[in-house]
């Protein structure tokens, strides 16, 4: 294939050799180099959907942080929304023309989100609450009363006391509710094939959240014309989603959801709103080279969506007004929250155009983009963006970027609505009499103005003692609009954002990238400005960092003559690799040659579940209730399962042959569910009660490990090295559960916090030996917490582990391993210094740690030749054999470790 005719130079060369070509390549190679470079062009320039070129693995972490919403004086102690996103992706070539791509994204978000909008002047909304007489926060109160003047303008109230202050106040306010952390996971896969002047790709994947699951597939292609100066791209995709929204326990009773009665099911005490949605996408595009310094890229896309297009957590406030009051000078409005109702179909058309100009004097590129979209909801949008990609030497590139966005409001968007009827009122019969129902016999009806002058249907007076109650009829939904939403994302607004991207190409095919963006939304920035929803203005920033590894397929024959390439390709086979220890062993091997670099990824999954244990024995519920917690509060809940996953990026470098340095950022995520213990005491007033089908989730950056490994002995067949490592407390230890039922959730359980919160010393000593097909080793490792307590007041227990393993090479590329491990872990010291609900054994420090024996079974694969030479994979399952738990804990089920590494 033509792309491979590009000049290959040093191993790990940068994908684009142009700067050198124009400056430093010897004259006799110049024409050839330029021609080759031109041949590279189509693959880089016109990739249909994903990056072509070299095999590559990327890791990226980003953090999204929103600013506080303006609640116009209402107390706001809720943390704004933040999201932590981990992304990994890769491109691998099966052949020169046939590629496989994959991607994995995991985001965990938490914080305060608007549930509805009301006039500021209601007696509810963000309703302040007090602790010891001091206002510390506000609870969302969806239903409330508002006093209106003759023209339906709200009469102002104090946002704290909710007392009328007189005067008209037409401002609206978001009603905020907080959420405990939730995690979404998405995986996608793709295959692509390239011909000389065409390409095809297919892909698919899925996204999983507790309340939203979708699967998607797509197909696309590209045709090149006119000596590849023109390319036409086309594609189509389909997404099918299932929504199962667990309606908020707290607010659900106050939100009217009549319209969805058929779609709501009850499970484990929760109400679940179900819906399906389908999205079809088609697009066609064109890339055209205009001159040797400019090109344009344009495409048109069409999206058709149908089904449940609502956000099930957003409600619209409808103010019910008794028509009889309309002529009064003051009117009382009954504010009620309804789950929003959007149309079931949406058609969107988007037009994208991008112009890219090379700026010769600066060796920079200017990118200018414009995007127009229109849809049948009335949301027309304009996006302008510009960026300047400026290489600044030494492998650095700086890219400032600016973007402006404006959208019109959806035709059915309103901050809130009025309806001229009562939300609920007493039924009146044909004779104009009020209707009453006998509470002891619901089929009996009485009529009359008050409870004391009732008659039955025959007109006979009824005894005073009868238990009659008004017969109520609710609002007529036919008098409400078919569609309404007060989700501010459907309002008219403008947004301005700007940021920079800084990237640095290191040697050896490693590149770093970091980006920052600040975004501000304002209704006043809308083109042709509505500007009436400034109450929903907000801002956010996103910061991210990425590391990218180019993996050069090792078997391609060195092409061209541009020097020095042949030695590099022997790399993967020429090294005398030592056998690697099982996947569950960390810090288990060293790089041998000064200057070597290793990049890797390690995944660990730790599963606890099954019975509750005390020491080595299972324990019944009543014992846990009585003894698992404390004297002041008995245990009420225990976990049913807990999953912990850790993603770790391994970066290892050998400055000398006897010293290696390592850096390992981690990303953690956990989920657990609880059950009520048999015999648990009833809920105590003022104490967090776990309710409903939903469990708990947390996830974000974990602790960061760094260490140096020192070779102590290296003779044929035997090696010993020491590792002196530290872990930095980058994982959070103050994650809180949301406030529900007017009770603070408090800090989440010790085991669900993402890090240790303390600086830790993590030394280890490893011996490894090998003889023919056999290999073996032993490692002693420990964790010593270097601080007395973390910011939440406690510290995790120290840990010691001894492990020994043996391996046998089944094939020269495949090793089976077996391992035994003993682990001692101390209980947690001290305790939370902030509120924690203490609902079960997992909230007490003494119920952590113990002594554990495990057996590990694993395989290691080292790819020696072929396209993926140099890659190493490991997998190990660690099976608990014996556990002696401190206190009361959920049983261990095992741990899976998987590793991938690549040495440069």
């Amino acid at each position, binding site marked *: 294939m033509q792309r491979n005719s590009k000049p290959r130079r040093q191993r790990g060369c940068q994908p*684009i050799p*142009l700067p050198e*070509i124009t400056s430093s390549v010897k004259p006799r190679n110049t024409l050839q180099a*330029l021609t080759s470079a*031109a041949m590279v*062009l189509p693959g880089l*320039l016109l990739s249909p*959907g994903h990056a072509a070129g070299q095999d590559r693995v*990327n890791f990226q972490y*980003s953090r999204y942080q929103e600013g506080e919403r303006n609640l116009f004086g209402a107390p706001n102690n809720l943390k704004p929304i933040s999201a932590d996103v981990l992304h990994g992706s890769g491109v691998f070539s099966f052949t020169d023309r046939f590629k496989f791509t994959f991607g994995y994204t995991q985001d965990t978000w938490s914080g305060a*989100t608007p549930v509805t909008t009301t006039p500021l002047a209601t007696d509810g909304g963000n309703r302040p609450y007090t602790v010891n007489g001091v206002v510390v926060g506000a609870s969302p109160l969806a239903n409330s009363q508002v006093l209106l003047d003759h023209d339906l303008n709200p009469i102002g109230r104090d946002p704290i006391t909710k007392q009328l202050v007189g005067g008209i106040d037409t401002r609206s306010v978001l009603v905020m509710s907080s959420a405990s952390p939730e995690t979404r996971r998405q995986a*996608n896969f793709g295959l692509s094939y390239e011909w000389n002047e065409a390409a095809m790709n297919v*892909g*698919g994947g899925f*996204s999983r959240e507790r*309340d939203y*699951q*979708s699967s998607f*597939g*797509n197909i*696309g292609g590209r045709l090149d014309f*006119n000596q590849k*100066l*023109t390319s036409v791209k086309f594609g189509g*995709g389909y*997404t099918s989603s299932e929504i199962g929204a667990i309606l908020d326990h707290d607010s659900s009773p106050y939100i009217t959801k009549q319209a969805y009665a058929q779609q709501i099911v009850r499970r484990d005490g929760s109400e679940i709103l179900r819906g399906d949605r389908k*999205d079809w*996408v*088609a697009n066609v595009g*064109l890339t*055209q*080279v205009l001159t*040797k*310094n400019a*090109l344009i890229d*344009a495409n*048109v896309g069409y999206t058709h969506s149908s089904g449940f297009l609502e*956000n099930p*957590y957003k409600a619209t406030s409808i103010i019910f007004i008794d028509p009889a009051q309309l002529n009064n000078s003051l009117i009382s409005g009954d504010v009620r929250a309804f789950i929003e109702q959007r149309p079931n179909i949406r058609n*969107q058309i988007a037009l994208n155009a*991008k112009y890219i100009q*090379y700026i010769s004097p600066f*060796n*920079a*590129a200017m990118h200018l983009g414009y*995007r127009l979209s*229109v849809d049948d909801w*009335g949301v*027309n*949008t304009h996006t302008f963006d510009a960026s300047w*990609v400026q*290489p600044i030497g030494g492998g650095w*590139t700086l*890219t400032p970027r600016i973007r402006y*966005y404006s959208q019109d409001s959806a035709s059915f968007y309103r901050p809130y609505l009025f309806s001229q009827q009562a939300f609920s009122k007493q039924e009146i019969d044909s004779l104009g009499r009020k209707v009453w129902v006998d509470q002891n016999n619901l089929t009996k009806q009485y009529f009359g103005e008050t409870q004391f002058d009732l008659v039955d249907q025959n007109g006979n007076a009824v005894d005073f003692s009868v238990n009659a109650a008004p017969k109520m009829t609710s609002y007529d939904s036919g008098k409400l609009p078919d569609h309404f939403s007060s989700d501010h994302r459907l309002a008219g607004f403008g*947004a301005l954002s700007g940021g920079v*991207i800084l990237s640095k190409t290191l040697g050896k095919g490693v590149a770093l990238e970091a*980006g920052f963006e600040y975004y501000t939304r304002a209704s006043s920035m809308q083109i042709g400005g509505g500007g009436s929803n400034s109450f929903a203005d907000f801002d*956010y920033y996103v910061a*991210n960092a990425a590391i990218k590894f180019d993996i050069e397929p090792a078997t391609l024959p060195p092409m061209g003559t541009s020097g020095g390439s042949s030695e590099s390709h022997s790399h993967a086979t020429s090294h005398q690799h030592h056998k690697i220890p099982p996947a569950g062993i960390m810090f288990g091997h060293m790089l041998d040659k000064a200057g070597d670099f290793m990049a890797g990824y390690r995944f660990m999954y730790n599963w606890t579940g099954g019975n509750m244990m005390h020491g080595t024995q299972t324990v019944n519920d009543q014992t846990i209730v009585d003894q698992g917690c404390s004297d002041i509060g008995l245990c009420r809940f225990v976990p049913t399962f807990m999953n912990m996953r850790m993603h770790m990026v391994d970066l290892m470098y050998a400055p000398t042959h006897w010293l290696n340095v390592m850096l390992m950022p981690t990303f953690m995520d956990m989920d657990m569910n609880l059950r009520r213990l048999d015999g648990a005491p009833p809920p105590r007033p003022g104490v967090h009660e776990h309710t409903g089908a939903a469990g708990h989730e947390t996830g974000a950056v974990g602790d960061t490990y760094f260490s140096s490994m020192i070779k102590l002995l290296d003779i044929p067949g035997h090696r010993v090295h020491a590792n002196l490592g530290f872990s930095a407390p980058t994982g959070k230890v103050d994650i809180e559960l949301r406030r529900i039922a007017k009770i603070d959730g408090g800090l989440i359980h010790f085991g669900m916090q993402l890090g240790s919160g303390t600086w830790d010393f993590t030394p280890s000593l490893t011996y490894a030996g090998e003889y023919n097909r056999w290999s073996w080793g032993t490692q002693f490792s420990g964790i010593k917490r270097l601080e007395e307590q973390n910011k939440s007041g406690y510290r995790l227990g120290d840990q010691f582990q001894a492990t020994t393993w043996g391996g046998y090479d089944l094939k020269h590329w495949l090793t089976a391993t077996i391992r035994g491990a003993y682990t001692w872990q101390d209980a947690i010291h001290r305790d939370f210094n902030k509120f924690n609900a203490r609902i079960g054994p997992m909230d007490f420090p003494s119920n952590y740690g113990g002594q554990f024996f495990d057996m590990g079974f694993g395989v290691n694969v080292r790819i020696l030749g072929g396209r993926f030479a140099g890659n190493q994979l490991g997998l190990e399952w660690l099976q608990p054999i014996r556990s002696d738990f401190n206190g009361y804990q959920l049983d261990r089920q095992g741990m899976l470790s998987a590793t991938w590494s690549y040495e440069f």
Partner: protein
Amino acid sequence: MSISPMIKLNIRAIIARCYIFIACIFLTACVSVAPWERGNLAKTQMEIDPYPLQSEMQSHNYSSREAAPSHKSSSGGGGCGCY
């Protein structure tokens, strides 16, 4: 669902733009940039999307906060963005 006159107008505008693009194709068919003149075009900074990781993330953020169709809609992807 009925298509409002406003949208009809926009669709017309889009069709007009499509014509312009088609015209562009024919015009630019005459463009000739020889292989040895394509050095600048092959530079990383001239790629249509020089930072795919960044743009993927940005578009996810935008689509969770704005009502325009997802920038990456053709490559699929799900998720509620319910926050």
